[in-house]
């Protein structure tokens, strides 16, 4: 038994030094390669699902399910008032396609990191990071709902859809990023 286990370890150590492994699985893609791939899969998404890629709309449903699990109700909210939204809420997250796509992003990144043998749990280092995560998260969540999307749904998908809203989002987001950078350097570094 021990011998077998040892052989297995040796096999994966050999993989680790294999040239193709290093080239294709270990090393990062270039930014341009990733950009081309993202664009291709964005087009695939529109062709196959009838809608462009979106991420943050799903988070509103996650919030609603959590809120309902702790006893709240969102039935009276305008945002969830449409029959479609009600049906999605009633069906639950296990039946929600967007939920599985978002969880898929997490799992895809997790698997890619492990396959590259580069996984490490990164603990929170300081109180500043906690404050930054809370404030930043809240601002992204609220902003994405008011602007009808995030960097994916409103920006990437908006611009790809030849919508003026995508460009307006881009300009406003850029200035937000400048202000955010100033705040980051001043308070969170």
């Amino acid at each position, binding site marked *: 038994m021990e011998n077998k286990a040892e052989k297995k*370890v040796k096999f*994966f150590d050999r*993989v680790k030094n294999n040239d193709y492994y290093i080239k294709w699985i270990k090393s990062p*893609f270039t930014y*341009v390669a*990733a*950009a081309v791939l*993202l664009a291709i899969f964005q*087009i695939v998404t*529109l*062709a*196959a*699902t009838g*809608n462009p890629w979106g991420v*943050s709309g799903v*988070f509103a449903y996650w*919030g609603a399910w959590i809120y309902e699990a702790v006893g709240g109700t*969102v039935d009276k909210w*305008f945002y*969830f008032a449409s029959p479609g939204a009600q049906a999605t809420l009633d069906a639950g997250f296990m039946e929600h396609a967007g939920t599985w*796509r978002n*969880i898929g*992003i*997490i*799992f895809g990144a997790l*698997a*890619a*990191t*492990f396959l590259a*043998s580069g*996984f490490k*749990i990164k603990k929170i280092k300081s109180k500043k990071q*906690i404050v930054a*995560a*809370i*404030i*930043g*998260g*809240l601002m*992204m*969540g*609220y*902003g*994405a709902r*008011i*602007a*009808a999307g995030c*960097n994916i749904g409103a920006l*990437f998908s908006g611009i*790809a859809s*030849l919508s*003026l*809203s995508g460009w307006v989002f881009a300009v406003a987001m850029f200035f*937000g*990023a400048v*202000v*955010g*950078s100033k*705040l*980051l350097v001043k308070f969170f570094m």
Partner: protein
Amino acid sequence: MAEQSSLASRRSSSSASRRKPKKNQIPIGVALVIIIVAIGIYLGTKSGQLALYWTLGISFGVILQKGRFCFTASMRDPYLTGGTSLTRAVLIAFAIATIGFAAIKYGYQSMGLPMPGMSYVAPVSLGTVFGAFIFGIGMVIAGGCASGTLMRVGEGFHMQILSLLFFIIGSLWGAHDFGWWKLNVISKGKEVFLPDVFGWAGALFVQLTIIVLLYIAAEKYEEKRKAQ
């Protein structure tokens, strides 16, 4: 390689690599791939749509992680560090996706069918400006946008788990206030689909020209910042 190793050997402090034995994580990665496939098969038994979305999510996650692709950095780095390589990569993604989207939408329209994904042509209002502005601030502070936060949760960042949690709470808060915004702000805006304004060829020409000009500007800007 020879020149590279010389730099490491010239350092006086000892490299941590000689202290820590490296573990091999590839077997866990292989196990994860098997789990991913198993979940895909399970979802496929429920509905093809769920399996399709799962596959797309996995693909996006892998691409984002392998490319270290970060929309936050593409917006932040020009100002903060003077680098624009991610900005230019994002512009390339925009250009390619634009062409693909236009082709699909045009195809549907010319067959007399309703175009897919038109709900993503959102009204332009002060809500778009305000929402995108605070989203921009938030993503820089939290160290990740919507896709980047999910990707970094997968990479093992506790900080991004926390920001994802508050992203969800913020989304719920935004959804709670959405009725007010819709009534007073968003409803005053109008959806502008560029082909309606410039025609199909015109819209593609205008948008791709803007993307090319932005690309050139980004490159020139980086050279200028470096010269300083």
